[in-house]
């Protein structure tokens, strides 16, 4: 068992998928932090009440060393975060840039836990995976500096891509298992999405019209719940599609019925709907950044060759 695990962790592939993930994560950092700057909210949510902010914040060690959560310090950290996100997207500085970006993001979004959401945690998880994995092997300035080309076939460990996919599946599976409300679970009336979309805290506009298409919201609730709870099946489907040349009836079934793609399609519809109907910050863009790892490196090449 251990020998198989060690052998699996030693397998390699081209680094295209994790490079696309790294680019997407860099853009998500710019979006997440830049959106707060654009809304003129840095002084409001990330600065302590003692300096004019709206909350008593909890600064990290880094923020304290820089002088505390004052407007000047927090504005500087926010702009540094945007800059680090840009460097991460460009792929300059390898793992160090990812680590610096992670620290800057923690200095800002973690300072006020009341003014944030799970998207902040997902972003940080993704950045840590950029620290662990060699994401600048290709599609990066690092690659250009090393080879004078922007792309490279240099192999990277497949584990880096699996960690990204596992993180995505853990998130969906965990949130699904915690949806124990009678509005979500079988045995109830699957009205959770209808009622959630009535909450003024999150909807973009008045959603009472959903009462006239209530059965559709029930269907969407049921599909969402089952899709999330059975997310581990997606991991299996991903693994089978990555090893499609190997034997096995279950593998053949999953590949033939495109289970990985069906799960991804439901996810795309789910996040697309979320973007249109609700304002839950950058949750959908950050989640979709993880989808880059679901696409195999050879598939990215096929997509790139298409006119």
């Amino acid at each position: 068992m251990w020998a198989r695990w060690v052998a699996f962790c030693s397998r390699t592939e081209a680094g295209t998928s994790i490079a696309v993930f790294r680019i997407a994560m860099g853009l998500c950092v710019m979006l997440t932090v830049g959106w707060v700057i654009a809304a003129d909210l840095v002084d409001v949510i990330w600065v302590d009440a003692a300096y004019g902010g709206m909350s008593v914040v909890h600064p990290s060690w880094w923020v304290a060393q820089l002088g505390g959560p004052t407007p000047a310090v927090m504005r500087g950290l926010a702009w540094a975060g945007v800059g680090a996100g840009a460097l991460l997207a460009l792929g300059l500085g390898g793992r160090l840039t990812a680590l610096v970006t992670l620290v800057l993001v923690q200095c800002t979004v973690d300072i006020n836990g009341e003014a944030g959401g799970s998207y902040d945690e997902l972003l940080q998880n993704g950045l840590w995976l950029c620290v662990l994995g060699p994401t600048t092997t290709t599609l990066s300035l690092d690659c250009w500096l090393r080879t004078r080309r922007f792309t490279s076939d240099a192999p990277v460990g497949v584990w880096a891509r699996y960690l990204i996919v596992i993180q995505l599946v853990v998130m969906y599976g965990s949130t699904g298992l915690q949806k124990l409300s009678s509005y979500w679970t079988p045995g109830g009336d699957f009205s959770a999405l209808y009622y959630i979309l009535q909450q003024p805290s999150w909807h973009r506009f008045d959603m009472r019209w959903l009462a006239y298409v209530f059965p559709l919201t029930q269907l969407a609730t049921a599909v969402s719940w089952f899709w999330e709870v059975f997310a581990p099946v997606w991991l299996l489907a991903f693994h089978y599609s990555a090893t499609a040349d190997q034997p096995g009836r279950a593998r053949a079934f999953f590949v033939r019925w495109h289970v990985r793609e069906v799960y991804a399609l439901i996810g795309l519809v789910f996040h697309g709907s979320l973007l249109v109907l609700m304002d839950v910050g950058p949750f959908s863009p950050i989640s979709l950044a993880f989808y880059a790892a679901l696409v195999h490196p050879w598939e990215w090449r096929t997509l790139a060759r298409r006119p």
Partner: protein
Amino acid sequence: MKAWPHVRAALLAAHLLAIVLMALPSPQGGMNRSAWKDPTVQGELAAWTLRLNAVGIGMQQPEVEELAWNLANAYEDGRGVVLAPFMPYYRYCGTWQSWRMFVAPHRFPGRLTIDVMERGEWRTIYVARSADHTWRATQLDHDRMRAAIFRYGWRHYRRSYGTFGSWVAARVIEDFPDAERVRLRFYKYRTASPEEVRTHTEPEGEYTGALILDLKELR
């Protein structure tokens, strides 16, 4: 060099163990007795009491609540012990796994309303998601402000709500030089069922959590 594949495999296994353990379902964040008195939570407990009764487990709602409270506390205690060795990894590497997203609809949400008193008369300047009362809406309607304001609607965030109220008062002083007072409150209501929307019999709500600040004292 021969050791590295084994070390790497062990580190990857440790990472996976850490994130999966942390992601296991947990009521953390909802373990507040005053929050359990909210009609949304009481509604959930009532629904689960009915379900338990339907499968032959004869329990009353207070018993179900007490059992759930005790089980949740015991589970959280055990979870804390298991996760303790991984805490530095979560904290410093950003690997928290808190995915309690929309675990239940909030059937009794609150809509923040801000009024100012000028020459003895209250005037509404902001209502969440309103097209008519839009004072500082670009800030107050931002997703991060929505997250904070959503929390302020719960009683156990009263202290944070008070700090937020002071921030609002300072902004009102800037924008309304003649204002004498500012009032923040939540219009709390039960969200209408599909039938109630279709028959135009939507339930009335009430204002709660009123916070009134005298601006003369703050100037």
